[in-house]
């Protein structure tokens, strides 16, 4: 019990003493995951929108494949990206392995199926009159699409947050394609795994607390936004 208590106290000390190593890890984590989610979001939304609003041969199969990909293990994504980016792989000459870019590629692949599935469910169940009204009032295709997104922004925000939560805490892909390099590609989950394996729990606990605080913050944000929706304009 003392062991846990000591780890927790030391973790709090690390958090509030402005430990440089710890905050570098946090910075890398957020920088990589934010860039990944910003890249993935427009693609995921547009793919989900087209899947919901159009009919084409093989649509059901595509939906099933994307649903299945939600369960794609992070470590398998890491393995796949590793093979593509490694020296013998098709993109080996780009020298991206063990860089933040490689981590971003892995995280984009990881969060896309989840974001597409959630957004697709939103669009499929959305009131299509919103789209038709925008079009009949003179909006062009792009503007009508943006209006449609705006009308269902809170459900889409939930997809965004779920996608971010999926990648900020993943370890499998980041450790394989990022290499867990100190001050370069070491992010929160890979650092927790490393420190735990070394028996240094305090930094792991501190980083874990940050992840928990992040999850709490995102939920509060979503809750506040949804409450805003019900208020009169």
């Amino acid at each position: 019990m003392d062991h846990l208590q000591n780890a927790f106290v030391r973790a709090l000390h690390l958090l509030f003493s402005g430990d440089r190593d710890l905050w570098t890890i946090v910075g890398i984590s957020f920088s990589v995951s934010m860039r990944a989610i910003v890249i993935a979001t427009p693609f995921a939304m547009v793919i989900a929108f087209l899947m919901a609003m159009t009919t084409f041969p093989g649509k059901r199969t595509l939906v099933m494949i994307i649903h299945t990909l939600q369960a794609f293990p992070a470590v398998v994504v890491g393995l796949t990206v590793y093979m593509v980016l490694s020296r013998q792989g098709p993109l080996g000459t780009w020298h991206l392995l063990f860089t933040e870019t490689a981590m971003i590629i892995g995280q984009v692949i990881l969060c896309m199926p989840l974001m597409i599935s959630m957004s697709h469910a939103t669009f499929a169940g959305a009131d299509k009159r919103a789209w038709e009204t925008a079009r009949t009032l003179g909006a062009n295709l792009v503007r009508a699409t943006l209006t449609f997104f705006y009308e269902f922004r809170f459900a889409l925000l939930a997809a965004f947050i779920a996608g971010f939560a999926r990648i900020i805490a993943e370890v499998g892909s980041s450790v394989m394609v990022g290499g867990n390099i100190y001050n370069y590609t070491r992010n929160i989950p890979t650092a927790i795994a490393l420190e735990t394996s070394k028996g240094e729990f305090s930094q792991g606990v501190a980083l874990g607390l940050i992840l928990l605080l992040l999850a709490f913050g995102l939920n509060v944000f979503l809750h506040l936004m949804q409450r805003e929706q019900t208020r009169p304009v």
Partner: protein
Amino acid sequence: MSTRDDIEFSGVSKTINTRHLFQHLQLNLNPGECVVLSGDNGEGKTTLLRIMSGLLHPDDGRCQYNGTQHTWQRARSWLLKNVVYLHQAPYLFDASVEANITYGLRRHGMYRKAARAMATDALQRAGLAHLQQRSGKQLSGGERQRVALLRAWVLSPRLLLLDEPVASMDERARHTTLFLVRWLLQDGVSLVITAHEPRLFAPLADRHIRLQHGELNAAPPLTPVPSSYTEQMIPTPEGYHDGQRFQ
């Protein structure tokens, strides 16, 4: 601004799930004409309106406007800019009533400030100024219908398609809605109104047609429904004169 001449739809055919809804339909609309379209459920009234608005592709069809006949592919963008379709339960965006009304104006190239001024003016004249800052999502069915009509009216469309505009409204709300519809007619907007109870539109209708078994046929003239609300009881918006457009 294009001239106000006839709009003619011809050779319009549509099949949905192997069912031929209609084939080679023809419909001519004069400026400022009000056509009431009746028909049983499932005959394709709504589908026809959605085709005429450019929202739905027909299997075949042509459209004549500005004196020239166009293929559907070419006519579609014109229809989307000049025809407004109102759903049976109109959709208002998740924004204020004012923002709902300025939406179409902005899409037609009007500056934000001018669009706002026009929306304010329109709401005042329609007696709906008290709704200006209310959320579109929080209005009653009748209020939504009137705001949606106003939203269409400020665009001064060539053709307005109303799908059951007074369905499930009480008599007073119905009369106020019909009054706004009359404004549109006075501005030279052509109207097609679908109705299960076409007699409700007798005071406005120039023509009554019926969609039955995939064909459009002239129907007997409509006789008004006895009403406790006379037209004098409908509130007249302050400062509005026949045919006057907003400045």
